[in-house]
């Protein structure tokens, strides 16, 4: 456990440095560190104004947004897997992705009759994501106790409906297909300090709620009835953690689009390394997810520079082999 935590933190620091240092414009690590220290009154910066702008206005917000997105998607995925006791659960399970996709398509294609513009994309994606989860909950939430799968199936149905609507709108607006497609694949390319400040409160609050619910998820591993007999207010816990996971994911999706794979694979990798207790899985997933996504983004924006690879492609290309290797050398653990 301690070793995994140390390795995760080292990977996080490495990803942060790589996120700031690596790029088409070569800037040495120590010069970036020196510049950072000069901002707090230690030493002098050796960066030119252009280099300083590249580091702090382009790479830094992108890196921070990557940290937030990776942390939130990983912890939300782990939380969903715990609350539904389903290894296939990911943050998009209850319709977040489809709802956000529909909202974003609406904005990008300018289908609001002049009332909406592409700059509305984050807002409409956020609204679409939350609306989808609320509709899913209204359909399946009441029967959650008697039939927990109902909520998941409601999510599948809502996702299918919204995805078909999104596809239809996309086909009706052929001029914007490429932009919609790029958004759907997810990217940190449009990151700014403004987008960081918009998602930061959601991620901090929602991730803290998810991590804080870790002991409750451990109790829920014995099923709903036994959890209740042990004193757990199962329905309240479930409502709170689903709301927090969905809200945090919606905020992230509205800023970076649909980045796949992180939410499902990171908690599983962590589970294989540290065991089944959510008190270990969720906090480590926060850091591991953050490091993983920033590392993946660094590769996405540099390997074919100046062209960027879609981030979702890189997360899968790196994550799948890593997962397979760990899966083959560690004993699989159930939820």
């Amino acid at each position, binding site marked *: 456990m301690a070793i995994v935590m140390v390795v995760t933190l080292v990977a996080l620091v490495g990803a942060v440095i790589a996120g700031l240092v690596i790029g088409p414009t070569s800037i040495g690590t120590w010069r970036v560190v020196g510049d950072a220290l000069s901002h707090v009154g230690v030493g002098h910066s050796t960066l030119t104004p252009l280099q300083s702008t590249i580091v702090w206005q382009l790479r830094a917000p992108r890196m921070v947004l990557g940290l937030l997105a990776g942390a939130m998607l990983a912890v939300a995925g782990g939380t969903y897997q715990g609350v539904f006791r389903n290894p296939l659960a990911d943050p998009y399970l209850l319709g977040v992705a489809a709802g956000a996709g529909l909202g974003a398509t609406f904005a990008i294609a300018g289908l609001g009759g002049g009332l909406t513009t592409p700059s509305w994309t984050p807002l409409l994606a956020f609204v679409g994501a939350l609306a989808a989860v609320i509709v899913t909950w209204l359909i399946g939430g009441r029967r959650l106790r008697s039939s927990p799968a109902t909520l998941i199936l409601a999510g599948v149905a809502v996702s299918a409906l919204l995805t078909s609507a999104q596809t239809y709108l996309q086909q009706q607006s052929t001029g914007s297909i490429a932009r919609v497609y790029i958004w759907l694949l997810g990217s940190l390319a449009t990151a700014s300090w403004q987008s960081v400040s918009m998602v930061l409160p959601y991620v901090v609050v929602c991730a803290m709620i998810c991590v804080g619910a870790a002991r409750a998820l*451990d109790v829920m*591993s014995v*099923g709903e*009835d*036994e959890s209740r007999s042990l*004193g757990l207010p199962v329905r309240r816990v479930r409502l709170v953690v689903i709301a927090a996971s969905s809200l945090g994911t919606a905020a992230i999706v509205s800023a970076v689009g649909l980045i796949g794979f992180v939410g499902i694979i990171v908690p599983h990798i962590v589970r294989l390394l540290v*065991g089944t207790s959510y008190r270990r899985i969720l906090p480590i997933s926060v850091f591991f997810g953050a490091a993983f996504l920033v590392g993946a983004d660094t590769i996405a924006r540099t390997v074919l520079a100046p062209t960027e690879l879609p981030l979702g492609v890189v997360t899968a290309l790196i994550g799948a082999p890593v997962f397979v290797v760990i899966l083959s050398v560690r004993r699989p653990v159930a939820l």
Partner: protein
Amino acid sequence: MSVEVTHLSVRAGAKVLVDDVDLAIEPGTWCTIVGPNGAGKTSLVETIAGLRRPSAGSVSISGRSLLAMNERERARSVSLVPQHPVIPSGMSVYDYLALGRVAYHGLFRNASPADRAVIESVVERLGLSEFRERDVITLSGGERQRMVLARALVQSTMVIVLDEPITGLDLRHQMELLELLKGEVAECGLTVLATLHDLTLAGQFADRLVLLDQGRVILDGPAGQVVRSDELAEHYGMNLRVVDVDGADVVVPVRH
């Protein structure tokens, strides 16, 4: 602690599972509910454990209605050994037992020294010391059921509800588990409410037997009296003979 069940009815849609049941179980009593499949035994004990909401009537522990308690209060009053416990893979026996203290230390604090002392005491009494670090999934059926009983004892409730606790165990482990529980009842003055299919064991371990059929109480009395009642055989729809073996009643089914 006493258990008072007053005019209790439980429905699932239009189906009546428990029909106007009255029971008053004195502190330190072992009361076993018997009855054919579908009699409503599980629904009754689950309601007494607070897992089902009555459609009418009430359940009180020492005069306090279950409905007036929050989840943690209820978990400190009545514990449950379910018929089919969920065994979570990857959890150690000690961590599994520690779940029984969540109602005391809450979700945001670790187990206190007092909580750990309770767990250690139960581990010792139920002979689980050698298993404490084992993954629960690696235990045998008998060991698992002993562990589930131990978790209920870790909850430190004075009322313990057991729903078919010996299902799937061989004869030795059945006796072993019930003897362990009997020892706890004698030592701690627990009130036990159990359901059992085995009428012989039900008669030998319980102070009192309640025959339930179609959700209603048919017979309620001292164990020896109920197992020898003609109504017992009638409600099971079969020939039953009771044989005295070294002073113990043994209930034997006889082919028509």
